């Protein structure tokens, strides 16, 4: 089992809360104590005895042939233990699995894309590792890395997604094109919708490259065991039980021989750390070569320039068909997603937006078409929202533009097209279902809130007019935005499936990954639960202890929660896609039932009566006739005498869509299935300084609904954090590139993260519409703010600048001051 830190008894939970329900309370987290006292053990804190340290030699060219790698001087350094190059890997290991291995071009020729942990013949982005150096400490390893002499023959590079489609520079000669995937999905009859509508509104919008940029960089400690020919890898990878295949397949070992363990404390991930397998593999290979533990700590510059951690980078062309009366009739989405140098594992983030294709609007006919292109930039990975955030942004932009072209109030236009509560559960044209919610009421509520600001507040007409005199334009534009939750896993390999065959694929062929949870009664009468998923600050341990306490009628302090490693845990979907509130709570209810059943069976056998004659209550099993009771401690002792521990139970909670026929179409056609739809309306009041182009968010109002709130404190925390990341995305963050592929943001001086000075005061209200599809009524909340805040900030900027009649001022994310200044200047000329 994992050697990570279990929760500890927490003094906060006192007897006064006894017998009340803990679920639904903002219970402070059990994780906090160890963190606050400096005792949490993050991956950077793990340094086994005898450990060596790895540093990487990285390409400074965006595209070049590697002519020669001279390692002699490095190897001559007295403290050098090993230098690994791409050649060494090819002799012994495999390439890393990529999202698309074989590309079939229009003329039918097939080519393959291989990505190795170290490049050998060609480098394809700045920061791509070409050699690994292992030495006694990190300082020395970096010294020695400088001694590795790589001769490059630089080639032309392409760093723009749209330009890459021309194939003038091809990133992978082996496939001969940069467009490695393309699909056009049609739902309903979009052609007719566009033909018959009174207007067709068109717009172009772009979403720059951003990412999660967790404060903790990637880290790995790998140890090879010679006796068993197997590996132990501690690392802060996300989804360690799902993406461990990227590690063991690269190493060429069986899953059981590569034990991947994630510490209980991970310093943020937001999706991005699922792509750090390169480091895991390299440290493992070095450890095998040297028969000593090898540690790698990524530094911030590596993380930003070549850490395989960038996210979506899209150019959209959107079309909306609308009638004179303001009815939305058709949607046409076309975009290019620039994937960087390799099509990685989370390639499916181009498809996830299908789960919220039309956001909160009724639009029955739609096209969704994309080109997935490669360029000489760092490869993309997942990020909070998983590709939904750019989609919602582009959609809200075209909706804004349509309202303007129709001369309608943009809020009225939105309201008129919202899905009504009596249409729920609502089936989207793309076959996913929304579970529940009253979207018009949410829009009304946020409107009421900002109405108050119009009367003597931030939006008081007199104040707004006076500010305009100073060149400061205020505005706000709310909308209702959906957060799809709880991914069904089967759609995620759609791109690798024979698409023709999907039309009539039997529903029975679909696999769904459930959430696994274990619970064990311990000798002292406490219960220990084991999560199969990793966690990076979401409070999973707290959530499980609080729910399990309710189910077992114990106190949260009677429950400890620990983690399983990748070998002990079944292959799991885990912590992603806003899944955990729903999946962990469902699993907790199930595992508690299993444990109660086991306790009753043990007691019944002990008393030699049938299980009907015993009942579990309040931490003990009672005989129905009231003659005797057995405490948990006693039951543990009795159970320990048996051959098999019956009080060690596990439970798999099925994906909530599994039993709903309504999801069958989506499942069998491998379209994204997200059975919960948390939603909310935002109203960020923004002020744009038309002289500097700077945007100040004066206040961020939001009304949100995530169904049952299991722990309101955690729910709000997730929303705050998501909104803050959304603010960064909307206004500050971007991985810019020069035309030749040189990255422009390689330190935190250039990649601007929002500080306390950038994030506005957030005023949040909640409504609760439980999900009819989930056991606890919870919907996911992990990605919300990041999905909705950029769109809302952008529409509010448009609203603020409305009087200047600038054409779609926020047509680009981030809406940087320079971009806004140039838009405003264009208009004035």
């Amino acid at each position, binding site marked *: 089992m994992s050697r990570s830190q279990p929760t500890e008894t927490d003094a906060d939970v006192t007897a006064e809360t006894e017998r009340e329900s803990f679920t639904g309370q903002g219970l402070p987290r059990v994780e*906090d104590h160890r963190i606050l006292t*400096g005792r949490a053990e993050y991956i950077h804190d793990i340094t086994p005895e005898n450990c060596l340290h790895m540093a990487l030699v990285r390409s400074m060219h965006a595209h070049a042939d590697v002519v020669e790698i001279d390692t002699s001087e490095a190897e001559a350094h007295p403290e050098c233990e090993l230098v690994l190059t791409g050649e060494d890997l090819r002799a012994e290991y495999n390439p890393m699995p990529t999202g698309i291995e074989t590309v079939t071009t229009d003329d039918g020729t097939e080519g393959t894309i291989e990505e190795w942990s170290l490049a050998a013949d060609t480098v394809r982005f700045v920061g791509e590792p070409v050699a690994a150096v292992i030495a006694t400490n990190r300082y020395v390893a970096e010294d020695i890395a400088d001694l590795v002499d790589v001769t490059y023959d630089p080639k032309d590079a392409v760093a723009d997604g749209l330009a890459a489609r021309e194939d003038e520079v091809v990133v992978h000669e082996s496939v001969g094109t940069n467009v490695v995937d393309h699909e056009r999905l049609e739902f309903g009859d979009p052609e007719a919708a566009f033909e018959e509508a009174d207007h067709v509104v068109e717009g172009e919008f772009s979403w720059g490259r951003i990412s999660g940029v967790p404060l903790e960089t990637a880290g790995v400690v790998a140890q090879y065991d010679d006796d068993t020919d197997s590996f132990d890898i501690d690392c802060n990878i996300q989804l360690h039980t799902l993406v461990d295949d990227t590690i063991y397949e690269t190493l060429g070992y069986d899953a059981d021989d590569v034990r991947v363990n994630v510490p209980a404390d991970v310093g943020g991930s937001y999706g991005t750390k699922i792509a750090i397998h390169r480091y895991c593999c390299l440290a493992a290979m070095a450890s095998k070569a040297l028969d000593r533990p090898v540690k790698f700590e990524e530094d911030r510059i590596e993380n930003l320039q070549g850490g395989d951690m960038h996210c979506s980078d899209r150019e959209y062309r959107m079309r909306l068909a609308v009638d004179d009366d303001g009815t939305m009739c058709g949607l046409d989405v076309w975009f290019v997603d620039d994937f960087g140098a390799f099509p990685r594992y989370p390639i499916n983030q181009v498809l996830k937006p299908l789960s919220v294709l039309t956001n909160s609007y009724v639009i029955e006919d739609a096209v969704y078409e994309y080109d997935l292109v490669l360029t000489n930039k760092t490869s993309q990975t997942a990020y909070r929202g998983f590709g939904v955030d750019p989609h919602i942004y582009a959609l809200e932009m075209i909706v804004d533009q349509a309202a303007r072209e129709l001369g309608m109030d943009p809020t009225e236009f939105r309201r008129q097209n919202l899905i009504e509560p009596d249409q729920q559960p609502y089936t989207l044209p793309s076959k996913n279902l929304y579970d529940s919610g009253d979207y018009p009421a949410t829009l009304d509520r946020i409107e009421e809130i900002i109405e108050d600001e119009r009367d003597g507040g931030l939006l008081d007409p007199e104040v707004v007019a006076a500010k305009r005199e100073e060149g400061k334009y205020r505005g706000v534009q709310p909308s209702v935005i959906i957060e799809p939750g709880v991914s069904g896993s089967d759609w995620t390999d759609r791109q690798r499936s024979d698409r023709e065959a999907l039309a009539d694929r039997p529903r029975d062929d679909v696999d769904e990954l459930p959430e696994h949870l274990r619970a064990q009664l311990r000798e002292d009468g406490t219960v220990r639960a084991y999560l199969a998923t990793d966690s990076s600050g979401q409070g999973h341990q707290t959530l499980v202890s609080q729910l399990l306490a309710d189910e077992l009628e114990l106190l949260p302090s009677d429950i400890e929660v620990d983690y399983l490693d990748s070998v002990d845990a079944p292959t799991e979907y885990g912590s992603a896609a806003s899944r955990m509130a729903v999946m962990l709570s469902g699993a907790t209810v199930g595992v508690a039932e299993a444990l109660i059943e086991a306790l009753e069976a043990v007691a019944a056998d002990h008393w030699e009566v049938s299980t009907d004659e015993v009942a579990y209550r309040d931490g003990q099993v009672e005989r129905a006739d009231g003659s005797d009771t057995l405490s948990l401690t006693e039951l543990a002792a009795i159970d320990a005498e048996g051959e098999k521990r019956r009080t060690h139970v596990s439970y798999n909670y099925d994906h909530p869509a599994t039993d709903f026929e309504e999801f069958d179409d989506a499942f069998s056609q491998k379209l994204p299935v997200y059975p919960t739809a948390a939603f909310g309306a935002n109203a960020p009041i923004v002020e744009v300084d038309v002289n500097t182009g700077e945007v100040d968010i004066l206040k961020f109002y939001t009304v949100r609904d995530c169904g049952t709130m299991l722990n309101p404190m955690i729910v709000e925390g997730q929303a705050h954090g998501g909104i*803050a990341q959304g603010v960064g995305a909307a206004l500050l963050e971007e991985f810019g590139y020069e035309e030749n592929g040189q990255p422009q943001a390689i330190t935190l001086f250039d990649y601007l993260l929002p500080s306390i000075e950038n994030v506005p005061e*957030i005023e949040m209200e909640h409504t609760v519409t439980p999900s009819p599809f989930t056991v606890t009524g919870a919907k996911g909340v992990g990605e919300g703010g990041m999905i909705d805040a950029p769109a809302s900030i952008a529409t509010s900027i448009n609203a603020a600048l409305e009087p200047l009649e600038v054409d779609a001022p926020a047509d680009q994310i981030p809406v940087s001051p320079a971009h806004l200044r140039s838009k405003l200047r264009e208009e004035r000329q």
Partner: protein
Amino acid sequence: MSTDSTGSDDGPVTEEITITVNGTDVTAAVEPRLKLSDFLRYECDQHGVRVGCEHGVCGACTVQQDGRTVKSCLSYAVQADGAEIETVEGLAAEDGSLHPIQEAFHETHALQCGFCTSGFVMAAKELLEENPDPSREEIETGLADNICRCTGYQNIYEAVERAAERMEE
């Protein structure tokens, strides 16, 4: 420190320093290039000192040196020779009870992944020592050198305000 130079004559040059870390004197021979953050983390086992950027932007490595906060990734251990350093490990009382700032962070959910937390707690400590009753603007200025990627800051304001009340009592 043992920058084990494998016996070679031209091994790394080291300098002997003594730093008082959370009340205990630590004497070590260190390379002049050893960052104070690494000295604290690896030579003194104060893992609560986190490094997020190693170039002075994120504030995760914030500690107090002679009563003033410094970003320990921006200075070298040799520069702190003779100094008194306090890290987050030095805050809780002997009996394990949390410092009011730690307590307030816990109660207001001002931490998620917690990687930034030691830095924020130390920055808040200096702020409250200088200004026991800060306004929101003063908190903003006091914490502007630290980045938190998880919490969105709102709860951090609340934590500092709550800690200020507690410390007044």
